[in-house]
């Protein structure tokens, strides 16, 4: 419950990003504010402050006032906290969306392969093998680098290079075998069970058996996988965005904000630490939620684990 509460809180905060930016901070977190200034303690100070000793320019640090640069400014003079909330929206959106797509296709392919067996199973399994043969991050980075410059143009599908849809599809694709293989194994086991054999014997169509008999028995497994896939996908998105090949500027994700703060680690560490904390808390909550869902579907597992 605590995990669900924490996750809900994070999601709510991120959903309120536009309200915070426009009504509280009064800053557009997507526009550079290099020459901007704010009033702090009655004094007007530059958002990017020239060094008084030596060389250089440093963004203002955290003010700890929600109304003004709560977590300070990034190298572009933008409000880090506002970008953190917006970044969370994108990270969560990509994480959830890619998990939905991944689980949908993985379940469908796993069910078809496990149920029909033979050539169908061979084709699907080899597809999984091919994807699984590549280290997941290497494959995601390779696809991102290619699609980042040209976008995706296949038939009637045209996706622009900077679109969030690209990281969603890439991340969803690379994780399909991670869900698809367990589903296939489960369905192969189910296929030999009496109730399925009875359904086949009674003349039920394959589609009906898959829908009415197989899917309900696979769904709990997929539901347990789902929160963990969201967490995996968010981590992958953060890694890609950190490498500048995920979410593209001026859009933000927690990964891009960590990258923005990379050059400020010595002077303004909060720029990178804050989104890092966001990722840790969200992924921990999702994993705990996944455990909770598993326990709810299979209470005996908890008893076995405790014995």
């Amino acid at each position, binding site marked *: 419950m605590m995990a669900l509460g924490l996750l809900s809180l994070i999601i709510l905060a991120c959903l309120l990003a536009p309200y915070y930016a426009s009504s509280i901070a009064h800053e557009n977190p997507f526009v550079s504010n290099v020459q901007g200034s704010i009033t702090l303690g009655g004094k007007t100070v530059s958002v990017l402050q020239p060094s008084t000793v030596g060389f250089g320019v440093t963004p203002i640090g955290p003010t700890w006032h929600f109304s003004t640069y709560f977590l300070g400014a990034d190298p572009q003079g933008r409000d880090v906290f506002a970008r953190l909330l917006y970044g969370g929206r994108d990270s969560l959106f990509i994480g959830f969306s890619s998990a939905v797509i991944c689980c949908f296709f993985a379940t469908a392919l796993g069910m078809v392969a496990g149920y029909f067996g033979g050539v169908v199973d061979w084709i699907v399994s080899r597809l999984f093998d091919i994807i699984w043969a590549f280290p997941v991050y290497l494959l995601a980075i390779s696809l991102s680098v290619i699609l980042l410059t040209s976008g995706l143009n296949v038939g009637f599908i045209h996706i622009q290079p900077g679109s969030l849809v690209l990281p969603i599809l890439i991340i969803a694709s690379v994780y399909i075998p991670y869900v698809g293989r367990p589903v296939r194994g489960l369905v192969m086991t189910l296929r030999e069970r009496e109730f399925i054999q009875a359904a086949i014997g009674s003349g039920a169509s394959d589609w009906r058996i898959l829908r009415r008999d197989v899917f309900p028995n696979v769904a709990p497994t997929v539901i347990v996988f789902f929160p963990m896939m969201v967490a995996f996908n968010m981590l992958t998105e953060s890694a890609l965005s950190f490498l500048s090949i995920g979410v593209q500027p001026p859009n933000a994700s927690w990964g891009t904000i960590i990258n923005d703060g990379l*050059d400020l680690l010595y002077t303004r560490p909060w720029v990178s630490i804050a989104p890092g904390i966001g990722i840790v808390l969200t992924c921990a909550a999702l994993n705990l939620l996944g455990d909770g869902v598993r326990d709810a579907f299979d209470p005996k597992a908890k008893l076995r684990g405790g014995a």
Partner: protein
Amino acid sequence: MKHSFTSWVRAGAAAALISSAGLIGSSAASAAGVTYQPAHAGGTLHLLATGAGGTLDPQVNYTLQYWQLYQATYDGLVTFQKVGGTPSFTVVPDLATALPVVSNGGLTYTFTLRKGIKFANGAPVTVNDVKATFERLFKVSNPNAGTWYNVIKGGDACVKTPATCSLSGVSVNAATNTVTFTLVHQDAEFLDQMAVPFGAILPASTPAKDQGSTPVPGTGAYMFKSYDPNKSLVMVRNPYFKVWSSAAQPQGYPNEIDETFGQTVENEVTAVENGQADWVFDPLPADRLQEVSTKYAKQINVHTLTANWYLPMNMNIAPFNNLKARQAVEYAVDKNAAVTLDGGTQLATPTCTILPANFPGHVNNCVYNKGTGATYAGPDLAKAKALVKASGTYGMKVSLVAQNDTVDYNEGQYVVSVLNAIGYKATLKPLSQNIEFNYIQDTKNKVQISLTQWFQDYPAASDFINVLLSCANFHKGSPNSINISGMCVPSIDAKMQQAEKLMITNPVAGNKLWGQIDTQIMQQYAPWVTLFNPRLIDFTSKRVGNYNFSLEFYMYVDQLWLK
């Protein structure tokens, strides 16, 4: 060049200009390696750069990063004197025994080649190597073959059919060991252009194609031992090198010089602070500047550079094939913001002109800004937005290409933000510095706008205006098309040629004309947004000594002492 001299009159004038303007950095003007001190020889010098500088071929590479290293690895018939300060602009004989005998009204240059010099592969340097070298310049599509070296008789034909290039203007005499260059017209900058690394003499057997990662033997104190653009570059002593002129090619101090690629500049700075490396090539990150400039003040050297950071806009594709669209960007970009992102006013100065401040021909003029004076007074967003609408390009997609190092990436993000603010749908395409410079030159990549830098090859206005904006340097479909904005205006080209001719007879009038051309280009064509003239910080490790800075090619890496 992404970084060159002969008219001694002009050289002196330029040096005086720069000196009087306080442009000389903190390095003393002591000669580098004039008195060699063997006690300081030895050790391995560790240099760091976030990315490699592209091809290692000295006749193709046009980056400061490698031109700095070529000083110790290659030699031309002439070179820029290896000393600190303003004398570093002076051309001295290198592989030639003396400066050329100029005859035939300035159309014939005769060099006598030194005897006994060998390439790093052991082969002797011959006059045939010299002729082959200059023909190879055309065969490998040298970026400036069509603007610099086509002055040699037969050069224009070589530009048209490089594969079969045979320069009738280069004749050799093996018996007298002389090479004679015949020019199609007088050229005040011919020796400057021979003194830059493009003029490095290579073995005649060097394949007539870009050698990429394969080291080409040179005659310098060092040779390239290995080069992996994804990992490192290693220079070791050239076993066949003997000093023939310490002013041209002095003996170096480190036994080995390596440059490692791939670290973040933050890590590079930390490595130098900890003594794990000796020098950082890249601009120092903004948040480390205060620390480095205060805690390690004795390890930094600051120099004002005659260089421009600028945004070339592609004049041949939408939206910047529209003058009003280009002018809109000129008005919109806040050069003071660009200066802030480079580290503040101590490290850069906003500029509005093609020619850097205090450079020959420079005229203080600022067409596009909020004010009406010659000095930059800030952006005019209202005018910019109005121009975008008037141009009919409102809402168009624009992609800006920039290097992915800290400063360029931040500058790029800022410009993208500005482009969005005036009505475009802009995105940033960050690329590794290893490929960005060639990528933005190639018209096949359809780059609309990019961020890049230009450092003088030698102090002459033509090196900015002619090199970067003339028709001859715009090559469609080539990654060596240094006229990145693709500007080709025959009437402006004719004026450039007029200015070049005037420089031979009347440098003062010639420079005045260059200044007028600068202003005319910016007013009527606006091919670039010039952002600022930078200052350079060299951050070296504690163990490094004998720092010397050439205004031509910057720090002499091979002259550094490690003990």
